[in-house]
């Protein structure tokens, strides 16, 4: 009998359905082959997995709490749990992936790491694990993002990383990714530590696998707190989609409703948006075939979101695939709605969310709940980096 393929499984060329693959010039072929070999090896390597889990526990502080928000539960008339990735060391889910990949880089004998970053959370996580493992660290960051996420730039530098501004295009995450890939082509001995479930195969599958710890924990925590492992809905924001992939991972092959929240910017029809699954169509960027914001001639359209971490014209191929076949539902939240949700969570619960995560909180307002719903919102990061944006809002 033929084995039924899981949603999260890729074929031999790295495709989820029609999406994914490795669309890279021959120059990166050896690197990706080597990476794939090592990735397959560590999946069944107990020593590697033990070291990974041990660092997640003692260094990152996992498991992250699953917190029942009484006030949100009262408002929406069903239990609403927050998965507290904001409490991780360095302040977001990005560290899970950074730990996994730095261990892989070490195993591969690498000593130099290059990464891209949008909000700076992945850059900080990468700079952190590089310090931990004595590796040289170079982070590309869009010039616009360097301005709007200044505290994270300072953290990266303090940790010993070199931060190089990406000055091309929209000067945001997309351009930082272009520069990181170019650097990698020029320095094939460097390890490219990608920050989301994007890029050429095997990156999307690898990052999803390192982030899957989020849903593994949700399962056992929910079981302990409610007696059942499955919520009815899981909500997560999507830039590239790594926190969402992690929060959804163990639930794809179930009937739990998976809700991916994209950045609507000033509104999905305003021309200033990053809601890729609404305004995008299939295209190739950064090495994978996925949903992409582009014009009729296939030129990539510059996205817009107040949130640097969601300001990306693509989406991971796993999400493109599961959204296309209807397994994942996507909705979008505007800048304004996200800002309001951030303020709400701050005064309700004393938790200041990252602007990215505030999009997931804001999605609650857009969904209908029954009293028998059990909802998990993945709170992907904390808002320290966004205080300047929050404080500049005179409406408070």
């Amino acid at each position, binding site marked *: 009998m033929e084995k039924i393929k899981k949603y999260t499984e890729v074929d031999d060329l790295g495709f989820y359905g029609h999406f994914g693959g490795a669309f890279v010039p021959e*120059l990166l072929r050896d690197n990706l082959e080597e990476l794939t070999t090592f990735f397959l090896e560590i999946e069944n390597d107990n020593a590697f997995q033990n070291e990974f889990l041990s660092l997640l526990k003692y260094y990152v502080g996992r498991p992250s709490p699953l917190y029942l928000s009484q006030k949100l539960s009262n408002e929406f008339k069903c239990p609403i749990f927050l998965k507290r990735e904001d409490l991780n060391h360095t302040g977001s889910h990005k560290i899970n992936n950074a730990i996994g990949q730095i261990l892989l880089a070490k195993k591969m004998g690498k000593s130099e790491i290059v990464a891209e970053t949008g909000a700076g959370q992945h850059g900080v996580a990468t700079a952190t694990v590089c310090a931990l493992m004595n590796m040289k660290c170079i982070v590309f960051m869009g010039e616009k993002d360097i301005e709007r996420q200044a505290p994270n730039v300072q953290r990266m530098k303090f940790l010993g990383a070199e931060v190089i501004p990406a000055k*091309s295009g929209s000067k945001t995450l997309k351009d930082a990714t272009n520069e990181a890939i170019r650097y990698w*082509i020029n320095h094939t001995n460097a390890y490219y530590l990608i920050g989301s479930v994007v890029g050429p195969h095997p990156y999307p599958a690898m990052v999803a696998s390192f982030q899957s710890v989020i849903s593994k924990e949700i399962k056992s925590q929910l079981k302990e707190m409610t007696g059942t492992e499955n919520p009815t809905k899981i909500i997560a924001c999507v830039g590239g989609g790594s926190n969402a992939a992690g929060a959804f991972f163990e639930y794809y092959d179930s009937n739990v409703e998976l809700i991916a929240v994209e950045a609507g910017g000033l509104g999905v029809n305003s021309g200033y948006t990053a809601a890729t699954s609404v305004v995008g169509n299939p295209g190739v960027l950064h090495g994978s075939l996925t949903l992409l914001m582009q014009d009729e001639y296939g030129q990539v359209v510059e996205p817009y979101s107040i949130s640097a971490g969601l300001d990306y014209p693509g989406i991971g191929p796993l999400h493109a695939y599961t959204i296309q076949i209807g397994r994942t539902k996507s909705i979008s939240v505007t800048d304004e709605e996200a800002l309001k949700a951030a303020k709400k969570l701050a005064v309700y619960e004393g938790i200041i969310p990252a602007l990215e995560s505030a999009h997931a909180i804001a999605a609650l307002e857009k969904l209908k709940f029954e009293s028998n719903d059990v909802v998990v919102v993945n709170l992907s990061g904390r808002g320290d980096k966004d205080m300047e944006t929050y404080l500049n809002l005179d409406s408070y």
Partner: protein
Amino acid sequence: MNPFIKNKKQLSIFITAGFPTLNSTTNQILELQSKGVDFIEVGIPFSDPMADGVVIQESSSKALSNGMNMDILFDQLEAIKNDVHIPLVLMGYLNPVLQYGLEKFLIKCKDVKMASVILPDMSFEIYERFYQSLFEKYEIPMTFLITPTSSDERILKIVESSKKSFVYLVSHTSITGNKQTFQENLLERYSEIKALCKNVPLMIGFGISTKNDVEKAHKSCDGAIIGSAYIKSLIEKRDLVRELTP
């Protein structure tokens, strides 16, 4: 018959379509032809050229802001198709081609007499699985990139599929525009690769900019391809082809 020639020291130039001005594409092609350039790669500009250095990046974004797009490019190529007697190759990233529609693209390529197509971010494996049958249907031969570190086995497979085009050897693992240094061990590898190519011409590109580079390239390969250095010479209003030819 293969329009690309083996064992003749060839010079090829890469231009960015629509750079420096929207309508400069056709004049550049005709002028390069009259100066004795053996074949020309016509670059389709893309917003996110991940394997290109600053010079080609900037020429691409200028071309796009000049208004270049696939429809205009095919119109331009149509206008000169009877005046061009050397092989033209369309080169670009995959996304603009997919968005235009691969089948429509191939039909147009045939109409305007393109000798080959290079899509650097489409790997040989992906070509084989998804696109080869369409390329064959419209008889447009693909040209693939290889690098000095590509395995012999892989090179042989690519050579086998390149009987009506050529093999594009990337001189060293680097984005375009980074100066090539031609170390001895690389030259040796180039010669080995040339032997693997048998009757298929081997052209080398990436980082080739001077007369000396071209001479070195010709010792081990059939032709040298110049991109960034040509774009730079346009900006500096120098006659690069004259500088490079005896």
